[in-house]
């Protein structure tokens, strides 16, 4: 089992950081989303065993988060958000060092360090001093140190920070490949929603210390909104006003396409009915895919 948290509550003094978190995550890649202050970091700290919840219980990789923190950290890989390295070291020493600290035998750690550095695309520069690495290379290095001991659970915090488009694509593909291994679970915390969409099939959205939404991304898209793309002929102002009154959210694109987010309870027929009444000709009516951005905005209550 991956992660199971039941009614987790935690507060910093009077500030309630987590308020009854219930999640159960198994396998694959999971996106952890939420605005700043939603409780993502606190939740990560609790899962890694740095904080003890005030209330509730949880298990990570079948280890109790209250009593078996060391065992959790032995089997977990963590890629932090900000740049981190040790000056004076080269990449292979650095990666092997953290493998060894995770419990790998020294020689095995060195051998594995070479492998993972090639894997993340730093093979050619593995003997270079880390001070000379670019921001993108440091990002790859962080991934290397997180996977050197072959963890069963990988926490990735903003894994595509500082990367150029090509580098970002490569890192995302690596993460996608790692998460496709049946026995490795990846939990990604990121503000870059397209990254989450690319890798994760399951998301947990936190807001104000609570789970605002969770589930398969496809289901969330369907449950939150149904998105349709319309092309109409005629004067649409009154028509748009009326369908907004029905609960639809409408966006007009530059190429005159209307993106209509229909609430789940509203039937499509109502749109056509309104069009007829307003003497509007509907020339195109296509079901489209809701973006994660829409799901996120709805879950945290922003437009």
């Amino acid at each position, binding site marked *: 089992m991956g992660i199971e948290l039941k009614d987790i509550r935690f507060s910093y003094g009077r500030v309630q950081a987590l308020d009854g978190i219930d999640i159960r995550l198994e396998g694959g890649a999971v996106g952890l989303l939420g605005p700043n202050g939603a409780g993502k*970091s606190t939740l*990560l*700290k609790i899962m*890694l065993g*740095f*904080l003890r919840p005030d209330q509730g219980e949880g298990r990570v990789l079948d280890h109790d988060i209250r009593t078996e923190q*060391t*065992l959790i*950290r*032995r*089997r*977990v890989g*963590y890629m*932090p*958000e*900000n*740049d*981190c*390295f*040790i*000056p*004076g*070291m080269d990449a292979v*020493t650095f990666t092997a*060092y*953290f493998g*060894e*600290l*995770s*419990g*790998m*035998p*020294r020689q*095995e750690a060195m051998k*594995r360090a070479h*492998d993972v550095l*090639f*894997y993340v*695309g730093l*093979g050619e520069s593995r003997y270079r001093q880390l001070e000379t690495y670019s921001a993108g290379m440091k990002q790859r290095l962080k991934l290397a*140190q997180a*996977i050197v*001991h*072959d963890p069963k659970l990988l926490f990735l*915090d903003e894994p595509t920070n500082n990367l150029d488009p090509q580098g970002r694509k490569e890192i995302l593909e*690596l993460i996608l*490949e*790692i998460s496709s*291994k049946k*026995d490795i679970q990846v939990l990604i915390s990121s503000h870059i929603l397209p990254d989450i969409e690319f890798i994760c099939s399951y998301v947990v959205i936190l807001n104000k210390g609570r789970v605002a939404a969770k589930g398969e991304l496809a289901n969330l898209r369907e449950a939150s909104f149904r998105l349709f793309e319309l092309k109409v002929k005629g004067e649409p102002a009154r028509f748009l006003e009326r369908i907004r009154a029905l609960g639809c959210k409408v966006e007009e694109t530059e190429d005159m396409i209307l993106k209509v987010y229909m609430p789940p309870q509203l039937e499509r027929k109502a749109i056509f009915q309104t069009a007829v009444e307003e003497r509007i000709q509907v020339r195109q009516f296509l079901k489209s895919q809701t973006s994660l951005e829409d799901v996120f905005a709805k879950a945290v209550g922003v437009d």
Partner: protein
Amino acid sequence: MPIAERGYIHWDGELLERRRPWLPITRQGIRLAFKRKYFKFSFFVSLVPAFGFLVGIYAAEKIQDFKLKIEGVSTILQVNPGFFRAYFAGDFLLFMMLMLMVLSGAGLIADELRHNALQLYFARPLTKKDYFMGKAAILVFFLSLVTVVPGLVFIICKLIFSGSFRFLADYPWIGLSVIGFSALVTAFFSFYTLMISSVSKNRRYTAILLFTIYIFSDVLFGIFYASFRNPYFALLSIKANLQQVGAAFFNVKAPYAVSWIYSLAVLLTLCAVSAFILHKRVKGVEVIK
């Protein structure tokens, strides 16, 4: 096929549960210290007094063998507890220990705070205690090489050169004094260095601070002592406190007319304050921001 094209592969080994999880930190720290430009030079210079005193032990025995009648020689080269105190609590050795700390210890925590490396350590099965143990063991290693190791070598060489156990019969406690005083000096410098290294993210700043506090405390003592002639001002000086306790450990007359217990209390208090500051400055829980 290049490894990168083979895709992600699992490691088929078993993760160990180490009894001393801090050992890799120490090993890596020692290796990194020797990579530093001025450290090697400083380390070898700090061994110079040990060689000098070793030659002194040899010379003292040879002078007796050949019964040279040189006036004053017997008092200058007498190998007794005073000889050991002169080595351990000598100005030069204490200064060189400080230099070793400046060159090898100033960045131990400061560099890792600066480059956010702590979060990588604490995401591993390491406790804060393991982390400090690993860092402190680096300093203990270097300090031991200039304190307890030469001290024990002196005793062994004295026994070999003299060809008898008379020295041990006269001073049976000397070995314990060597170990005890070395442990105290090592513990003090380790706490002091780690504490200073944790107060800033800038290695240069911590190096200057390490040096300045040590020197300034002694200058302050000098000024007050010259003005008021009160030996209790020796308690202000780190060096004077170490020398006072050193004299007590080797059972010789203390340089200042102050009880060595007070000096020991000052040093232990500094260690406790350092431990407290370290505990406050390095927090495992703050690794995820």
